[in-house]
């Protein structure tokens, strides 16, 4: 009984710690701008970009090594989610709207 309780408690703590480490961050695209220019997240977090404009956007996520993750075309009303898998700085920009830029710092 005690062993079962301890095991269940340990399992709960592991699951709970996983929930604390992974969060979803929301970024809105409205007025052809990102809702924030700088975002700090933790490795493993996800970022959901919502297109609140009535025009298409096309976001890319560039890491510090020059790798680019093109998230593809995003029609009005659509949301796209990307996961930050490693620490570092990321530059986010829209290919269609050149002044739409933001930075993400993952720790």
């Amino acid at each position: 009984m005690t062993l079962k309780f301890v095991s269940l408690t340990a399992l709960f703590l592991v699951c709970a710690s996983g929930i604390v480490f992974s969060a979803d961050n929301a970024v809105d695209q409205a007025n052809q701008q990102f809702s924030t220019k700088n975002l700090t997240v933790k490795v493993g977090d996800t970022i959901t970009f919502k297109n609140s404009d009535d025009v298409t956007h096309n976001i890319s996520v560039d890491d510090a090594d020059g790798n680019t993750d093109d998230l593809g075309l995003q029609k009005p009303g659509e949301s796209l989610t990307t996961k930050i898998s490693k620490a570092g700085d990321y530059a986010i920009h829209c290919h269609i709207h050149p002044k739409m830029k933001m930075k993400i710092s993952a720790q």
Partner: protein
Amino acid sequence: MRAFLFRRFAVLCAVALLASAPLKSAVALPSFAIQTGNPCAACHVGAYGPQLTSFGRDFKLYGYVSSDKKDHFPPISVMVQTSYARTQTPETSPVAEGYRKNDNWGINETTIYYGGIIIPDRVGAFIQGTYDGVSRTFGLNTSDIRYVRDGTLFDEDMVWGITVNNNPTMSDIWNSSPNWGFPYASSPFSASSGPGSTPPTTLIDGALATNVVGTGAYLMWNDLLYVEANVYKQLGNHELSILQGLTPSLTYNIPDAFPYWRAALQNAWENGKYYGQVGTYGLTAAANPNGDRSTGKTDRYTDIAFDANFQWYANLKNVTADVLSAHATWIHETQSLGASSVLSGANASDVLNTLRADISYAIKATWIPTFQYFKVTGSTDAQVFNGRPNTEGWVAELGYVPWGKPDSPVNWANTRLTLQYTNYNQFNGMSAHASDNNTLFFNIWMAFGLNGI
């Protein structure tokens, strides 16, 4: 990549081989809409242009290369303009063979454009070749090719570029300077003198369009400060006859290279809901009147201009929301007539000033009423201005654009209908009979993007 570039280069050459007399013609290109995946209304106030929204200015600033990253056919567009014009008093003679002294209808312009990417993320172009239905000539119209880079300067974002173009103010991103200012279309049947003619203009106000070529650099820093400097050189008669399809007849024969400058401050408030800009631009050039160098002297023209723009957007999330726009420019030209004073008895110096101010309200990017006030003042000079150039009046216009919006049936075609009336209270120094030049103008402007079909 090689095949992509070769395809684009071949198409560019085809477009550049067309040549025409200079025409004020530049609007929303469907090829831009197809390249970006955005409707015309995203870049253009009133969904047709050439009046630019904030995104439209950015699109041009960043070299016409913004795209949805899809593989499109080379960015070719075609535009056709059909116009009707009636002046209050008929012109003394028809503007060209096949036309009448008044009440003229015609397909006055057919233009093929290369508008968009040449090299992804780096080089883009706005090149137009026009068939002028009045002069019946093919020619290269005002065009602009850009190389662009962005980065930071003093820890702030900046974008800079190199432009090659064939008209001072062609590279401008504001609708207050001559190449892009209102009215965006006007009667192609204007006479050279008498009823139906137009008042004198400064050198920077269109006289050099397509008969010069220039290059320079521009910089927008922190989305606040814009500076640009170009150098232009007038083309020779041989080059002009090829590019314009006719024997050139230049009012200003400018043998030496001459500078053009541009500086502006801009800002947006409440996340871009309000936008404002103030700036200056100008040039200075020395000319031989009608090519005559016998005096050993030249006429020097120095144009210094100031301009301002304002926009208010009802809803920035909606590209078809109402937009209020206002533009103003004042051009001051000093003419030091060292050659003309000897050759024709003109004054040793003259001045010519042009003021234009307009306001428009785009309703749902569909109906666009516009009102403009204009005034020209200058020296009394019988040789240069046939008296005084003083002219004053207004233009009222209603535009209708049914398409170019997110819910339009196609994104590769668009059209603009324009009904315009120009009223003169004073014309070339005279108030009497100024109204003889009053003009009613109707225009149908159609655009097709071949890369979207």
